[in-house]
């Protein structure tokens, strides 16, 4: 029966999508209710699958020619459940967010298609299946990004799709090479198959190319460029699933490749660690500088993906002892998903009232709204890694794994210094996370509203939205308080995907572990007081004002990718292609001119209506063909041919 549930998780939303669009042409209410019913069904199915604890596979031979395969259990069921949660909560809140907006039928159809595709990615047994659903997901989620069709949304959508297509093709070529080397793409069987392949550039090329598409979707540096514009452009509940769930599809792919193809490869681990660290710092700094609520949250997603990547890297480096890193990765993944599923829609609630995400305009919105403050406070504290909240647990595990590795390399002072540096970057980024969250929370919930704007809005969110958000926030609360009872089972469920080792008991609230969190929080407070308050806020007679101090020129997308891909490379390619085209047409016209060079007589049809008359009168000679230059050119060509003949003879 569970195989059927697994199939239904993928097929139900895919089949329901056209129905939703059709229903919408009759009545918007019917469509909304239908979509809510479908996502609720999906949620119940995913819950059943997760709570059963079963595992199994569903091969679909010959589908797409090569055969696809679905699999469930462990991490896969967990991620599918997260997706269902994301979509259910998103659907419940969309109704309020979308009131009276256009193109809703289109949106709901693609919303459901994306759910099916995302479930397909998470439940895939082999990388080909992953890729098939991954591409589907990229294309269908595009519609969510451009939904408003505002210029910035269209531009963000273009970038989103371009990154997806370019990096998707890289992944496809990687998969082709990998399949050629190993003869299988089944995730569980890949490690054994890779063992039979001699290590060398072929395997590295194959694995490296495969990761590109997944890394781009996850938002890893330097392929993160689409994220800060695409997530804010989408409607807020959609941003929630884009950030909370769809990024995880990329992480799923990276996990699969780095634990199967590159298991225990130190070089790969170091590369990934570097990427992870850069991504986490970059995301946090971008978030700190941003003055737009949603953009801050999007950049924060980049940063958190950096944490997750670091976890994956530590698994590679620690090898046999990587179980703590694995647990940290999995838990951070779950944490980040649930946190963003609350924060983005909460931002949407603010947008529905004020129609802005600009911190200077939404400032003080939540001052007299304790319910909303409480809902936002829980995920914020969790993300900041405050002890007692879920984020603390996963960050502690990640930190613990780094400390473990530093112990492992104790013999070599250089390595020790390098990895201690990495540890400090980790703690610093934790501090930056605290700082930007403090900035957001202070701005929205503590500061006074800008002068002339009444706080107002007695009824600022519908009952459905309020309940949905409260449920999500309440679910988050016990996780952090009872890590052994609630979070470790989750980790145990997910870990078999990456390692066979069992997770041992960990004490989270030891002084050593608390120290890391406290260092981060202190750094965060210092950054907030000395950087945010001094540099990013200007006090004037109207009150304080948040400044956008990020230099416009520092934009990888506009400075490098767009010029390169839109101008430089096409220009070079077009020059080559035009040359090839002119070569043919030019040669042919040259030949025809040479052949018709001396035409001295013409047929004149006008002389007699019955017969054409032949005239010996020569044609008027004009143009290049009759010029001296033309004769010279032909003579030159003749000489060239003679020379060629002499040389080649």
């Amino acid at each position, binding site marked *: 029966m569970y195989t059927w549930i697994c199939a239904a998780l993928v097929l139900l939303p895919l089949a329901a999508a056209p129905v939703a669009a059709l229903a919408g042409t009759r009545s918007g209410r019917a469509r909304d209710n239908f979509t809510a019913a479908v996502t609720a069904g999906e949620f119940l199915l995913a819950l059943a699958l997760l709570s059963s604890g079963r595992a199994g596979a569903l091969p679909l031979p010959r589908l797409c020619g090569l055969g696809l395969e679905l699999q469930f259990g462990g991490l896969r069921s967990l991620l599918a459940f997260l997706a269902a949660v994301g979509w259910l909560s998103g659907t419940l809140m969309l109704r309020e967010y979308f009131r009276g907006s256009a193109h809703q039928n289109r949106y709901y159809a693609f919303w459901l298609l994306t759910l099916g595709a995302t479930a397909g990615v998470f439940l895939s047994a082999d990388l080909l299946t992953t890729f098939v659903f991954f591409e589907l997901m990229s294309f269908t989620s595009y519609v969510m990004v451009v939904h408003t069709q505002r210029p910035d949304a269209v531009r963000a959508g273009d970038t989103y799709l371009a990154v997806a297509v370019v990096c998707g093709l890289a992944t496809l070529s990687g998969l082709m090479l990998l399949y050629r080397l190993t003869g299988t793409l089944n995730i569980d069987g890949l490690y054994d198959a890779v063992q039979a392949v001699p290590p060398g550039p072929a395997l590295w090329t194959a694995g490296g190319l495969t990761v590109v598409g997944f890394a781009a979707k996850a938002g890893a540096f330097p392929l993160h460029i689409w994220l800060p514009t695409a997530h804010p452009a989408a409607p807020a509940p959609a941003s929630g699933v884009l950030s909370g769930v769809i990024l995880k599809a990329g992480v799923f792919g990276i996990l699969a490749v780095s634990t199967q193809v590159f298991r225990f490869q130190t070089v790969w681990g170091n590369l990934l660690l570097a990427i992870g660290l850069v991504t986490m710092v970059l995301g946090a700094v971008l978030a700190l500088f941003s003055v737009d609520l949603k953009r801050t949250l999007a950049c924060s997603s980049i940063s958190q993906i950096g944490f997750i990547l670091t976890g994956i890297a530590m698994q590679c480096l620690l090898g046999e002892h990587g179980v703590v890193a694995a647990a940290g990765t999995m838990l951070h993944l779950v944490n980040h998903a649930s946190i963003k599923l609350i924060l983005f829609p909460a931002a949407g609630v603010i947008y529905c009232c004020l129609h802005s995400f600009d911190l200077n305009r939404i400032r003080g919105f939540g001052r007299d709204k304790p319910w909303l403050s409480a809902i936002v406070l829980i995920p914020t504290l969790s993300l900041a890694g405050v002890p007692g909240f879920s984020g603390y647990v996963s960050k502690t595990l990640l930190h613990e794994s780094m400390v473990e590795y530093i112990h492992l390399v104790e013999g070599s002072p250089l390595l020790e210094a390098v990895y201690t540096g990495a540890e400090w970057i980790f703690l610093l980024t934790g501090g930056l996370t605290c700082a930007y969250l403090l900035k957001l929370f202070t701005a929205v919930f503590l500061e006074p509203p800008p002068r002339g704007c009444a706080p107002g809005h007695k009824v600022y969110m519908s009952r459905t939205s309020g309940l949905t958000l409260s449920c999500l926030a309440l679910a988050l609360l016990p996780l952090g308080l009872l890590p052994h009872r609630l979070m470790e089972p989750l980790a145990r469920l997910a870990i078999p995907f990456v390692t066979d080792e069992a997770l041992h008991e960990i004490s989270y609230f030891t002084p050593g572990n608390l120290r890391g969190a406290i260092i981060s929080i202190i750094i965060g407070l210092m950054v907030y007081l000395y950087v945010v308050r001094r540099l990013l806020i200007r006090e004037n007679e109207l009150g304080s004002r948040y400044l956008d101090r990020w230099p416009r020129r520092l934009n990888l997308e506009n400075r490098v990718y767009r010029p390169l891909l839109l101008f430089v490379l096409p220009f070079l390619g077009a020059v080559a292609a035009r040359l*090839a*085209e002119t070569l043919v047409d030019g040669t042919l016209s040259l030949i025809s001119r040479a052949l018709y060079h001396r035409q001295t007589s013409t047929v004149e049809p006008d002389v007699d209506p019955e017969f054409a008359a032949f005239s010996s009168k020569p044609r008027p000679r004009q143009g290049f063909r009759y010029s001296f230059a033309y004769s010279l050119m032909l003579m030159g060509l003749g000489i060239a041919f003679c020379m060629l003949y002499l040389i080649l003879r």
Partner: protein
Amino acid sequence: MSGAWLLVPILLPVAGGLSMLRIRSSRLRRAVTLGVLSAQAVLFALLTFLVEGGEPLLYLGVDLPVRLHSDGVGRLFGLLVCLLWLAAAVYALDYMEHKENRARFFGFYLVSLGALMGICLAGNLITMYLFYEMMTMLTVPLVIHTQEKRAIAAGIKYLGFSVLGAGLSLFSFFFLRRYWADDLFAPGGILNPAATAGHEQLLLVLYLLMMIGFGAKAGMFPLFTWLPAAHPVAPSPASAVLSGLITKMGVLAILRVTWFVYGPELLAGTWAQNAALALALVTVFVGSMLAYKERVLKRRLAYSTVSQVSYILFGIFLLDGTALKGALLQLVFHAVAKNALFLAAGAMILAVGQTRVEGLRGVGARTPAALAGFALAALSLIGIPPTGGFLSKWYLVQGGLDAGLSGWGYAGLAVLMVSALLTAGYLLPVVLAGFFPQEGVQPPQQECPLSAGINGTVLLLAALTVALGLFPGLLDPLVEPALALLAPFGS
């Protein structure tokens, strides 16, 4: 039964086409066209299963026999042509209501199908050459149908390139006929090893000449420039069959020469194979690049054909079973997708009267069905799973890596991926700007409503690209017999 029965599918459309001279009423024309084409598809399938043929039907000279025979390859190409010809006809019957000279158009449309059938059923090179030239002559009127100056110039260019190409092939044929014992096509080649010994270099030169010659029809570099001139000026249903199917006759000729006359054994690893592979890959890149730079939608699609057909040629030249499977799948998927694209483009252009890509912003509001069909077919052409184009590329690359020419395998992978990227670059913006124009962009004015026949054909073909991609097993009865003939001879 005798091979003379195979004349039936050749003569039936000719008869149907000639009857158009006498038919005045448009309802009767519709009935005859659809009747003839449906009967044609059924008859072709039946007769090619029942009759093998192969014996000489007629001698052109002392030893130039005309032979018709049917095998797996001919059946695959022929059935594909028959079915898509029928689909395009359904579209054309509605589309041409808006144009002049309908009787002439449908006359030549049907008669030229007879020539295509002849190429598919030809049993030897000279028969194929005859029908090949016939096809060129009969399709010129489709190109110059509008009789605009531009169309006539394009028609002459088409004629010139095609005749030049066929002439190159004929030239090679005259040399080649000294080297075979029996001229009936046979998988794995018919050249007599005793006769060819010592003349390999000459034979390879002739091979390359033939490839360039027949490659003219398939739009292969260097003789491809007629294609972007001729395909866009024809009425859209004619462009669709010109681009989707008639180019495939060049492919069939190349397949026949490579696998049925020369055989992989003689060609594998020679400079001629390398040269042919290089030409194919250059074409893939050049076609895509020029399409990316083109602003007129139908010309863009014509350049895209240049690129996509050479994927098939690349698969044929690799002389490998897996790559050949990719090539045959690409043949089917490209034919379906390109027909869908041209028909959809024609429908949009007819509806709003804009031929340039910029003019079609927001067209999704006017012709949602046509643009949706365009979108699905575009995904197939790019090779996004689960559409068909994904699978053919998979086999092409796997075959290329298998073929023992590892350099070409990697080069093929790289060029195919760059080309796929460019394909996305020239097709997706049309779809995206059509469905999701920036706020404030006014959709173009509707000039003419689209009939159910037009929208239905486009959507049917587009749905077919997805259905065949999801269940490529549906194609097995057609593709597997052709592969079974040839794969044992591959590397």
